[in-house]
């Protein structure tokens, strides 16, 4: 979960990581109020959950009352990579001597935490890393290792921090490291970490991503007003509906409704449709062991999408059981009804039971099943994909 800059700075403040100390504004009037506090020498920063905000015009320096008003009005009208600007952070301008980059992240391959720093701060750090890798300094930590002050001093030394300021710099690193481990962070970046003319260090910017799967350990975040959230930009109405139902779903620009089991085959099944000349209308992940209700909702998303011409269904019962799958399909057929052709394959755990449920329901009401082509393990999944492309083609040409 990515935090807004102002939220990240709240956490920084809690961990004694110095921040500029501005406030957020919800409209230009509030921005003017905050601006006045700092003598109208401020930076106005759009609070959006995406990087590259600066290049998109999301950060403005204002040096007069007029500029604060004008720029904040502009910002609230801007859209940054699809995100509306609902809030801006108004920070005082800093008396900058030098800018550094400081970050911590996880090295997933070596199972370590990595602290990353560069004396080239305030610029595109990836470019620095690509062109002059020697300007990037890394320190690795095992999860069971403490952070010691000397490590930050060594880092500061390599960055060219003057001797008399090494302790302070190291303290800064220590606090960031402690914050990272205490809050199950995935990423923390300060770019730039500013050294002021008076020698002090201050986090001019703040980027923090926490591990969604560990939020249960941090109930205090909610107390701080930092709520669990999703990170996408603008959603389609169907994506919003899917999220409300708790279904990972993404609209694509094709016409074959994808109803596969499992995230892995969700991605690969879409490739298959392309290989056979079709275009998927969506990504969808049923998650582990979905309930019949949830499966029914997944089918509703596809059936109600006017772009969808045919539906590709696949279920290999693992943790998800075929009987539950069959129940979900039957529930959908009974309560909603199927308006598109559906070709599907079902096998795996409890497949016999799934087949039995289908047969019972069909015996009871054959009409429900008239648009369904049903296959078991004997048919390769590629054939199902081909057939879905065929069925959709028939509809498109009809």
């Amino acid at each position, binding site marked *: 979960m990515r935090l807004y800059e102002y939220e990240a700075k709240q956490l920084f403040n809690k961990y004694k990581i110095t921040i500029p100390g501005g406030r957020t504004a919800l409209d230009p009037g509030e921005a003017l109020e905050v601006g006045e506090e700092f003598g109208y020498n401020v930076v106005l920063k759009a609070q959006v959950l995406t*990087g590259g905000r600066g290049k998109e015009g999301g950060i403005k320096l204002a040096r007069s009352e007029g500029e604060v008003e004008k720029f904040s009005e502009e910002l609230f009208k801007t859209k940054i990579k699809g995100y509306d600007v609902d809030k801006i952070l108004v920070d005082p301008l800093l008396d900058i001597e030098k800018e550094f980059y400081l*970050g911590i*992240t*996880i*090295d*997933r*391959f070596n*199972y*370590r*935490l*990595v602290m*990353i720093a560069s004396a080239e701060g305030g610029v595109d*750090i*990836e470019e620095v*890393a690509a062109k002059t890798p020697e300007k990037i300094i*890394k320190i690795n930590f095992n*999860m*069971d290792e403490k952070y010691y002050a000397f490590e930050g001093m060594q880092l500061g030394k390599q960055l060219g921090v003057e001797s008399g300021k090494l302790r302070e710099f190291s303290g800064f690193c220590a606090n960031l490291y402690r914050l990272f*481990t205490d809050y*199950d962070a*995935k*990423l923390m*970046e300060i*770019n730039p970490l500013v050294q002021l003319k008076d020698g002090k260090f201050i986090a001019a910017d703040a*980027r923090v*991503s926490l*591990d*969604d*799967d*560990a939020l*249960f*350990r941090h109930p205090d975040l909610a107390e701080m007003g930092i709520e669990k959230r999703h*990170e996408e930009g603008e959603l389609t109405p169907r994506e919003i509906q899917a999220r409300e139902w708790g279904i990972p779903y993404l609209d*694509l620009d094709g016409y074959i409704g994808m109803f*596969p*089991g*499992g*995230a*892995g*085959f*969700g*991605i*690969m099944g*879409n*490739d298959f449709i*392309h*290989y056979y000349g079709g275009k*998927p209308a969506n990504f969808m992940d049923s998650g*582990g062991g979905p309930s019949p209700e949830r499966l029914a909702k997944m089918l509703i998303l596809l059936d109600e999408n006017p772009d969808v011409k045919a539906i590709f269904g696949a279920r*290999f019962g*693992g*943790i998800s059981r075929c009987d539950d799958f069959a129940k979900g399909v039957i529930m959908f057929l009974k309560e909603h009804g199927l308006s598109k052709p559906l070709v599907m394959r079902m*096998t*795996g*755990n409890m*497949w016999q039971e799934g087949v039995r449920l289908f047969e019972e329901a069909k015996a009871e009401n054959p009409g429900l099943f008239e648009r369904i082509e049903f296959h078991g*393990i004997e048919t*390769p*999944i*590629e054939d199902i994909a081909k057939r879905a492309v065929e069925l959709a083609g028939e509809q498109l040409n009809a």
Partner: protein
Amino acid sequence: MAILVDKNSKIIVQGITGGAGSFHAKRMIEYGTNIVGGISPGKGGQEVEGKPVFDTCAEAVDETGADTSVVFLSAKFVKDAVIEAVRAGIKFVVVVPEHIPIHDMLRIRVEAEKFGARVLGGNTAGIISPGQANLGIMPDIAFSPGRVGTVSRSGSITYYIADTLTRTGYGETTCVGLGGDPVLGSTFDEILELFEQDDQTKAVVMTGEIGGIYEERAASTIEKINTPVIAMIGGVFAPQGKRMGHAGAIVEGSMGTAESKLKILEEAGAHIAKTFNDIPEILGSLNI
């Protein structure tokens, strides 16, 4: 032969008294998997499916000689459970639950290394050595004993590939699900090395997808080993996903697209399959 689990493995189920634990324990036992007991702190002395339940792993190891564990617990209890297992002497732990906190996985890996143990998952469908042992949630129907190994991050992909290998008569030595969580206990390269040491595994099918970091890192292993590797990567037509900020890019390198992953793997000597049906064709062309 097989890797990691076989008919001699002595397996305990951590969380055996829970819903998923008891359901899959039954399935695993029915398959013939050598489940010797289960763990459920506070419920020692009970039985599940005729197998003894212990309060602690140490007891289970003492009394049953267990060497392998499969974990069915809520994500938040997994860290302690795995560390308990490896400290008690368990050498292989399969972590089925998903959404394990990342910092927990890092610590699990560090602890497992200290004790010379291997961890699979989290969010894995498990591992099966057909005809010998099935650990996790994989459906038996797809699998048959044979001569090809598989390793994939995804359970469903594993089923389809095994299904294909079974249908075309190759069968499988062992099918390994690495798991879908962002940080995994084992990686492609490590599993490939194990397959390399298994005489009966004549080829390995490795399936990755966009977004991960582990596929590229397998390239140097593919170059090194003699066992032929058939590689599939999902997401050729998927839009580029998000990545973990600049620091992530610096540490992990730029996130590979399906194409770049396929290129790296092909250059390392892997044979590329696009669909499952390509796999038996490639195996045939390699005279396997």
